[in-house]
């Protein structure tokens, strides 16, 4: 059996035992449901268009048209209902059948009945004034030509509206953060399980520590990637089907970016988690050795939330180059269109160099600490330990 054969066997075991693990299945379902939930929320909250119903006493078709046009200008879809008299209008407003009611819109003293002040006030005001202007002009015998269409020339065009892409990136970073924590924990627990049950001695009589480590990280990585791709497919399909996003190309680009950053981030964090976990022999001691690394992830997550607000900030720019933070911050900056291609290239290069370093040192720590059971191994001891 070749060197890679052992790695493949270890990876296969990780995948088959984890994929049947109840905790894993449950967490997968929760994440998928969360993504679907966010999309449904987006859809229900209706994005940018709102709607209102306005009752009219003494209206006519031109009043209806004026109200609807005025609503359109304000970004609100207006439904017009005819009402009999003032009493009926007050009743309808109180009952909530209409959001507002206009009395005598074309008369000398038009009145608006609302429950409390609302946006409808502005819509009705401009509709009433438009009707009045039109009526006065008609009296003077002026015939109105349709107003010319306004053309906008952008001097510094944003290629698209980046808002939705940032939202997608942020959602992606939330998932990415969750998966890094989850799979980092899986790696760490697996390492300690083998140490605490002492099965590691049997394993190491058939392979080198690096083969065991590589198999474990690769196996769980494949599983994480499958889960992420599954979430992405559900998310993208859902978003397109429900028409939540307007620019599919941008959406898919952002999702692919997040997936790519997951791979880099996972390689980094899984190696650190594995090395840290190899220092202890009991699951109870795991928390203390994982905390520093987990904190780094949390910091990256918080910064990425901030970066979504202000992608051009110094904090976001600097942290998008810091290894460990960059996988969470850079996708947001990229989605916001704030990162030049060379910045991304430099950030990836730094991260790859960091991974190489972490794998090297982490591998040494892991190999040195793996057969030292009982108590907690000091980092220095593990680095000095003989490697059989």
């Amino acid at each position, binding site marked *: *059996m070749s060197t890679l054969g052992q790695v493949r066997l270890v990876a296969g075991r990780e995948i088959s035992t984890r994929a049947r693990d109840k905790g894993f299945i449950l967490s997968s379902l929760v994440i998928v449901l969360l993504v679907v939930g966010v999309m449904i929320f987006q859809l229900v909250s209706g994005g940018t268009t709102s709607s209102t119903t306005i009752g009219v006493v003494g209206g006519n078709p031109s009043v209806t048209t004026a109200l609807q046009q005025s609503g359109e200008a304000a970004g609100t879809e207006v439904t017009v209902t005819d009402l009999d008299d003032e009493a009926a209008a007050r009743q309808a407003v109180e009952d909530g059948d209409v959001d507002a009611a206009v009395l005598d819109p074309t008369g000398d003293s038009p009145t608006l009945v609302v429950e409390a002040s609302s946006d409808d006030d502005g819509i009705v005001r401009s509709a009433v004034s438009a009707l009045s202007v039109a009526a006065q002009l008609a009296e003077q015998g002026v015939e109105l030509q349709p107003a010319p269409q306004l053309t906008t020339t952008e001097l510094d065009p944003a290629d698209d509206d980046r808002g939705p892409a940032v939202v997608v990136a942020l959602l992606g970073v939330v998932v990415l953060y969750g998966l890094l924590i989850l799979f980092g924990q899986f790696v760490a627990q697996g390492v300690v399980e083998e140490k605490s*049950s002492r*099965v590691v001695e049997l394993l190491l009589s058939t392979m080198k520590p690096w083969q065991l480590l590589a198999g474990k990280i690769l196996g769980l990585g494949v599983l994480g990637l499958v889960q992420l791709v599954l979430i992405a497919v559900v998310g993208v399909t859902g978003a397109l089907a429900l028409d939540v996003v307007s620019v599919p190309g941008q959406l898919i680009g952002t999702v692919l970016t997040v997936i790519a950053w997951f791979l880099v981030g996972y390689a980094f964090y899984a190696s650190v988690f594995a090395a840290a976990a190899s220092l202890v022999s009991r699951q109870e001691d795991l928390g203390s050795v994982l905390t520093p690394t987990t904190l780094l992830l949390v910091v990256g997550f918080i910064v990425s939330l901030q970066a979504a607000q202000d992608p051009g900030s110094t904090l976001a720019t600097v942290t998008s180059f810091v290894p460990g933070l960059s996988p969470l911050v850079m996708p947001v900056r990229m989605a916001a269109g704030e990162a030049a291609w060379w910045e991304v290239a430099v950030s990836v290069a730094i991260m790859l160099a960091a991974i190489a370093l972490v794998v090297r040192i982490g591998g040494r720590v892991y190999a040195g600490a793996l057969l030292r059971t009982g108590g907690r191994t000091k980092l220095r001891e593990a680095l000095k330990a003989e490697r059989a």
Partner: protein
Amino acid sequence: MLEFDGLVKSYGDNQVLQGVSFSVAPGQMFGFCGSNGAGKTTTMRIAMGLARADAGQVRWQGRPLDDASRRLIGYMPEERGLYPKMKVAEQLTYFARLHGASSAEATRAVDEWTERLGLSAKRGERVEKLSLGNQQRVQLAAALVSGPEVLILDEPFSGLDPVGVDSLADALLERCRAGVPVVFSSHQLDLVERLCDAVGILARGRIVASGTVAELRAREGGRQLRVVVPAAPAGWAGGVPGVRVVSEQRGDTVLDLAPDADDQVVLAAALRTGPVTHFARREPSLVELFREAVSAA
């Protein structure tokens, strides 16, 4: 031939092994004895690549053991270890495959060994749910399931009930007859004496005695006699030339004879004290040989 050649190993100032050498032929069952902390486990872990010798090497068929050849060895570590949450059959299949068995071979071997070690009913159970004795059997199966060319077992019998001891002993003898060299360490010297073709006694980092039990007895040089004279007064044999009293209890006496001592003189001396009900050469047990070898070292 499995050869342990001049193994030296120190942990800090503690020199655990000071040149351990012995060899085990194919089809030979080698009992590895020694006091606690004598270095048996370290010797076996060096063979399995779990510790590195400061000097010396372990060879199989003339070549130093490496990763590839270690996969041909069935190993049972002193610190038992299995995946607690993995099912018995899955776990054994995994270990067989790590030793290079194909998927089909592994499945067949797992069926066979779980059957032989009385674990057929437990194949689908998680290891943590099994009794300690059964976990021990699974551990043995893990060493045997890959059809190893060599077996290195650290205290394989400890923790087994008599039935378990018998089924393991049968399995080891059968492997041995198939030409597999078997090395196992044990404190149960009666078991070693019964099963092993050869014995090595490790004391203070060295093999102080090795060979077949018969050879060890011969090398012991002296002959022993057991003489029972119920009526004899205490100390009756003290004056016989070339004789040392090993033990004496109500007329039941064990004597050590110098090479030139005449046992007939001893018999005559015994008869002078009363009727002799027992007079025979006595074979020292492995326990006694062990004590002798360890205290002389």
